[in-house]
């Protein structure tokens, strides 16, 4: 059991999702970390096969392609490992694994690291 708990702490999961303001998402993690995200940045980092070429790994979203008015309409959990965003530009194929979201964190501590 101790081992399993350790594994969990290496792979934290979101405990709480909240909208901080019209363009900022907050996630509180099981290890206590509090992440903040600009939603536009999240849209730009969509990991789906339309946005990142499956074979070459080439990013199809270029700077400036995503409008500043981009907002999620709905955010849902997928299984126990990912989060799906339903964007107001109609895009909804991106499943963001918890690990990716953790890497994208824009809080003061993570920005410095």
């Amino acid at each position, binding site marked *: 059991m101790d081992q399993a708990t350790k*594994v969990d702490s290496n792979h934290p999961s979101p405990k*709480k999702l909240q909208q901080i303001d019209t363009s900022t998402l907050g996630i509180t993690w099981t290890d206590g970390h509090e992440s903040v995200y600009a939603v536009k940045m999240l849209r730009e980092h969509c990991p789906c096969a339309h946005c990142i070429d499956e074979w070459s790994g080439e990013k199809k979203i270029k700077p400036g392609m995503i409008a500043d008015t981009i907002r999620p309409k709905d955010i849902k959990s997928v299984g126990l490992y990912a989060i799906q965003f339903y964007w107001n530009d109609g895009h909804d194929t991106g499943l963001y694994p918890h690990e990716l979201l953790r890497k994208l964190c824009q809080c003061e501590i993570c920005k410095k690291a």
Partner: protein
Amino acid sequence: MSDQALQEKIIEALKTVEDPDLHKNIVSLGFVKNMKVENGNVSYDVELTTPACPVKEQLKSECETKTKAIEGVASVSVNMTAVVRASEHSQPVLTGVKNIIAVASGKGGVGKSTVATNLAIALQLSGAKVGLMDADIYGPSIPLMLGIPISPPRVGENNKFFPHEKYGLKVVSAAFLTKQGQPLMLRGPMLGGIIQQFLQNVEWGELDYLIIDLPPGTGDVQLTLTQKAPISGAVVVTTPQEVSMIDADKGVKMFQQVKVPLLGIVENMSYFICDGCDKKHYIFKSGGGKTLAETFKIPFIGEIPIISEVVIGGDSGVPILLSDPQSPASVAYTHLAGQVAAQLSIQQAKEDKAEATFDLAWKE
């Protein structure tokens, strides 16, 4: 001593009885219920989290001994009961199902369906309500193993259908969707649709455990299930050889990636017991499953022997647990069921769990 004072003393004594899996005493776990003390005659229930609890007898005798040792106790009657705790989830499917256990392997032919079937029977024999979902769409074998003739499922209201029932198990299989012996020829995306139906449209009723027999590999069915079904935990089946191990390794990694808790590794066809010498012969090496479990730091929860009766049981539709409960394989399956149930209870007792499901509507 008054009965009241005696009751307090008994409670104090029972606080020294620890559940070996949950590492807490049975009083603070809330297991002790309905205590009655009348003129020194004591009776109470101990309500465990699973009827398949592997240490049920041990706990019972410890309770009895510790209660009897108290001065003033004339007689003790400990009644062991169980109410299976539900894994928390808020997904809109399988709402009457308390725990969903996926049985998987990376490789085909390791005896996944045999293990899933016997695991389901063992849990059911312990007194739990159990369902079995045969999610191996291309090669459904559960109906044969349970001796269920192929017939279309009974249809209910709102597109729902009822599982077949045999030996007290509720069973759903893709085999019931076609005529006997007809292959289901489908492309990948259709598989997801069938699995969705199994999740949404089956009238499972109330179940303590739903066992899902997964097809081998890490494909469409596995992904749909991990995305759509609130799986409580996964059991990975392997055989002792290296070639099976490399695939089981992938199965384990898949569940880790999608964050489904791994309840443990089961090694099937572990050893052969010769009827002449009663010696365990490790035909395909030994210790492979254990090594895999150690590598990933997950529990090694069972070794199932190679016994021809297991195969005969599978082919004749009478699982070995029912035809020969004393067989070493039956003993191994009963042990496995206890371990699986115990590991689930441990998962549920974990603090600091993630919120399983959420849906955040964005406000402009």
